[in-house]
Structures are given as structure tokens and as C-alpha cells.
């Protein structure tokens, strides 16, 4: 564990300096920007009936995270964990340190998770403050956003571990990741009963309150939810399983750089 911590500190420092982290921080601020736009629009004219800040938060901002931002963050940071080292040919530096291979993966995963979670939560809490400022003194509102944050964090960790695993053995992990996120996860959501439980998105959506309106077509959730505790256990369990598998694959696989 200490070795993994050392790796995490090392990669967190590297990630902090990387351009892509800055780009993702900018992307993470999109929900804040949208919330600001919404507020401005509200201030300048009469908003449509029922279209309050609260409505916008749960009908637009949350689904935007669930269906786009979490996936994108997880996909990019997750596939980078191993592939970045292989493509950049820096793996040799890592593999020739007194660091077990699973610890290296776990450490870099933790560093990536640190960045991704920061991007996610800054935007989420920023949006919350802008959209629900009237309820800033209400502890239940904070409790609600904390719950949303916990759900999104858990889902991010689950996807991140899946894409970390993908990156350990598939070269074109981005392609397969995109197919998984925007193909499989979307298609399977339209199937009834147990079939839709074969998607991670199913458990994530089971944990967030369903939007009352269907104002935006892309937010449609075809959901027969699972019990919340079950969903949490599945997401946490999958995270552990994917990470363990990533560590295992990485410790057994050879990465041959092309000359």
C-alpha cells in the first residue's frame, strides 16, 4: 500500500502539470457556466413555469454528469493509466523501480481518480451553489448535493476502474470505451427487466432521483431501478473487481514497444 501511495503522489504531481488536466478542468466548469447562463436568463426574463434552479439542477446538470461528463472523465483518465505509459514509452521507468506492478497501477489509478474527482466535484458544487443559492442555509439541500456527489464519485470510480482494466490489455481502449459508453450502455437501457442491469449506467441511474419532466430528449432514462443499497454494492463491488483484474493483468502482461 505504501508503494501504491508513493506512485499516487508521483503521478498526481505529473498529472497536475499535464495540459490535459487543465483542459478537463475547463470542461468540468461547463456545468457551472451553464448554471450561470440559466441564472442570467432567469434574471433577465420570466422563466418558464416549473423551470426553477432546482429543476435545472436535477433535470439538466445531474444527467449531464451521468450521461456525459463522468463517462468522458473516466474514459480519458482510465485508459491513460497504462496506455499513456506504453505509448509514451515511459513504462520502463516505472517497471524498474522497487514497486510491485499492481501497486503501480493502483497508484496511478488513485492519482487519476484524484484529478477526475476534483474536476467533477468543483463543477457539481459550483452548479449547486449557483442554482440553489436560495437554499444555501438549508442543511437538507447540502445533504442532497452531498448524496449526488457521492453517487457521481462512486460511478466515476467504477467507470474509471473499468477503463483502467481495458487499458491494461486493449490497445484501442478509447474505441471500445466509446462503444461501451455510447453504444452498449445506451442500447441496453431500452431493454426491460434484468437485461438493463447489464449496464453500469443502470445502477448509477438507480441512485439518482428520476427527473420529473422529459424536457430534453437526451436525458430520457428508460429505467426500472434497482434498490439503492444493491446499486451501491454493485458499483463498489465492480470497482474492486475491475481494479483487482487490472492489477492482475498488468502484473502478468508484457508490454512490447514497437520499434
Amino acid at each position, binding site marked *: 500500500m505504501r508503494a501504491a501511495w508513493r506512485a499516487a503522489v508521483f503521478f498526481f504531481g505529473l498529472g497536475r502539470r499535464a495540459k490535459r488536466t487543465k483542459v478537463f478542468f475547463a470542461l468540468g466548469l461547463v456545468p457551472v457556466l451553464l448554471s450561470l447562463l440559466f441564472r442570467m436568463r432567469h434574471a433577465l426574463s420570466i422563466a418558464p413555469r416549473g423551470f426553477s434552479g432546482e429543476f435545472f439542477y436535477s433535470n439538466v446538470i445531474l444527467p449531464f454528469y451521468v450521461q456525459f461528463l463522468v463517462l*468522458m472523465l473516466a474514459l480519458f483518465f482510465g485508459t491513460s493509466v497504462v496506455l499513456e505509459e506504453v505509448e509514451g514509452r515511459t513504462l520502463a521507468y516505472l517497471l524498474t523501480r522497487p514497486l510491485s506492478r499492481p501497486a503501480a497501477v493502483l497508484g496511478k489509478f488513485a492519482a487519476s481518480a484524484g484529478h477526475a474527482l476534483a474536476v467533477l466535484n468543483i463543477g457539481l458544487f459550483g452548479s449547486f451553489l449557483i442554482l440553489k443559492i436560495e437554499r444555501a442555509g438549508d442543511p437538507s439541500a447540502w445533504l442532497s448535493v452531498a448524496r449526488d456527489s457521492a453517487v457521481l464519485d462512486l460511478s466515476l470510480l467504477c467507470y474509471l476502474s473499468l477503463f483502467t482494466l481495458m487499458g491494461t490489455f486493449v490497445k484501442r481502449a478509447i*474505441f471500445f470505451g466509446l462503444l461501451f459508453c455510447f453504444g452498449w450502455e445506451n442500447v441496453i437501457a431500452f431493454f426491460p427487466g434484468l437485461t438493463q442491469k447489464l449496464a453500469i449506467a443502470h445502477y448509477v441511474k438507480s441512485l439518482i432521483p428520476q427527473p420529473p419532466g422529459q424536457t430534453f430528449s437526451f436525458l430520457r432514462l428508460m429505467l426500472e431501478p434497482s434498490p439503492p443499497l444493491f446499486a451501491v454494492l454493485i458499483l463498489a463491488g465492480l470497482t474492486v473487481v475491475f481494479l483487482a483484474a487490472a492489477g492482475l493483468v498488468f502484473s502478468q502482461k508484457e508490454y512490447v514497444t514497437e520499434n
Partner: protein
Amino acid sequence: MSIREKGYHRWDGRLEERRRGWKPIARLGIRLAFKRKHFKFAFSLSFLPAFVFLAGIYLSERLQDFEGIVRKGAMPLRVVPGYFLSYLTADFVLFMTVVLLIFCAAGLVADDLKHNALQLYFARPLAKRDYVLGKAAVVMFFVLLLTLVPGLLLVVFKIVFSGSFGLLRDHPGLPLAIVVYSAAAAVFFASYSLLLSSLSRNRRTASFLIFGIYVFSDMLAEILRGIFRTPYVGLVSVKTNLKLAAAPLFGTKPVLEVPSVYAFVVLAAVVAAGAWVMNRRIRGVTIIK
């Protein structure tokens, strides 16, 4: 002993301008795309809508054969210009175009930047224009294969299945509309993908940007429409712009109540941005500060 100075001999021949310098670059790019793992699968899959629309044309001509299974009073399938437009701007076709771009376009400039290969290109009698044209030709080739070729073939099949030139008689501008839209889409996607590919040295980042911006722009348009309640925010979406720009060419109603010229302006702006960024990023010499 005299030591002869090493130097260059004066060449007295005539230097003829090579006008097709882009061709080998394009050929290589296309060949490499087909060599990529899983590309052939994605490429084949992208023709699925073409076969569905072809089946539609067949059905439209042979409805009497299916009377038994067709609901009474069902609207007969009308193969008019809008039908071809539906194919060309179908969500799946556009989605698969973007997926193909991940394979064939993401690394076009990014890989060259990563491996410092630009100086190798420009050490040959090759202008920046040839380089960009060659790379763009790779993207255009695949986009045209997905749009122009099936579009024109669908027209041909309609004529063959109907046994008359009625379609062309009623809509003489249809083939030209298909050609113009396909060419515009090819130029747009070439600029879009090369712009994003030249922003990064990493193919994975470029793939991510190509796909992410396409999906994100569509989502953003929907959200902004919710906030501002105006169809004009649809101009943020890549997909909507393509659909809007195509509508007047085929004489159909646009998907949004927005003049199509705005969509043309947005698409042209992306092309201009692509040209500008590439002009800045593609250099034989990189100065590292």
C-alpha cells in the same frame, strides 16, 4: 596535397513543380487506415443504413407484394429528395462517420507531431498545402464513401427498381444536391478532424476530442435550447448544422426554424478555424522555448 572543399554542385536542370505531391500522403493514409485493427469491422458497419434505405426503395416499388403484411391505411413510402437527405443526415451515418474519423483521422497530424515527422515531409519537394491536402484527402475519401457513393447508388437503384427516370424528371437537381452536400460534409469533416488532430501530439487525445466535441455539441445545444428557448442555439450542434445546411439543397423543411445560411456560416467558420490552426501547427521546424 590540396584538400577539395566539400560542397554542393550547382544543378542546371529545370525544377518542375510537382502538382500532385499530396497523392502519396493520401494513399498512405488510406492504406494505413485499413491496416488498423477493427477498422474493417467499423467500416462495414457504417454501410448498414445504406442497405436499410436500399430495402426501403425496393419496398416502395413493390408494395403490392407486401399488401398482406402492411397495415391498411399506412402511409406509402415516398422516395423523394427528402428520403435521400434522411439517409445522408441519419444519426447513425453521422455517428459512424465520427467513429471512422477516430480510426482514420485522429492520428493524421497528431502522429506526425509526436514523431517529429513534419520535418521529414518538408525535407521533400512538398509544400504545406500538399501535406494538408493529402491528409484531408484521407478523411474526404472515407466521408465520400459513406455519403456520395451510397447516395448516388440509391438514386441509381431507384431508377432501376422503378424502371423509369421519373425521379430525375421530377427532381433533376437531386444528383447535384447529393454531390454538393457530400462534398461539403467531406470538407467539413476533414477540417474538423484535422483541426483536432493537430491540437495534440497524442492520437488518443485527438480521438477523444473528435468524438467528445461531436457528442458534447449536441448535448449543449439541447441544454441551451432548454435555457434560452430559441432554435438558434441549435447552431452549436455539429449534427444540427449539417442537417440545417443540407435542407435547402434537397428542398426540404429544415429541422429547426433557423435560416440555413447560418449553418453554412458555422460550418465555414469551422473550416476556416481548421485552416488557421493547421497553418500555425504544421511547421517544418518547431521552436521549443
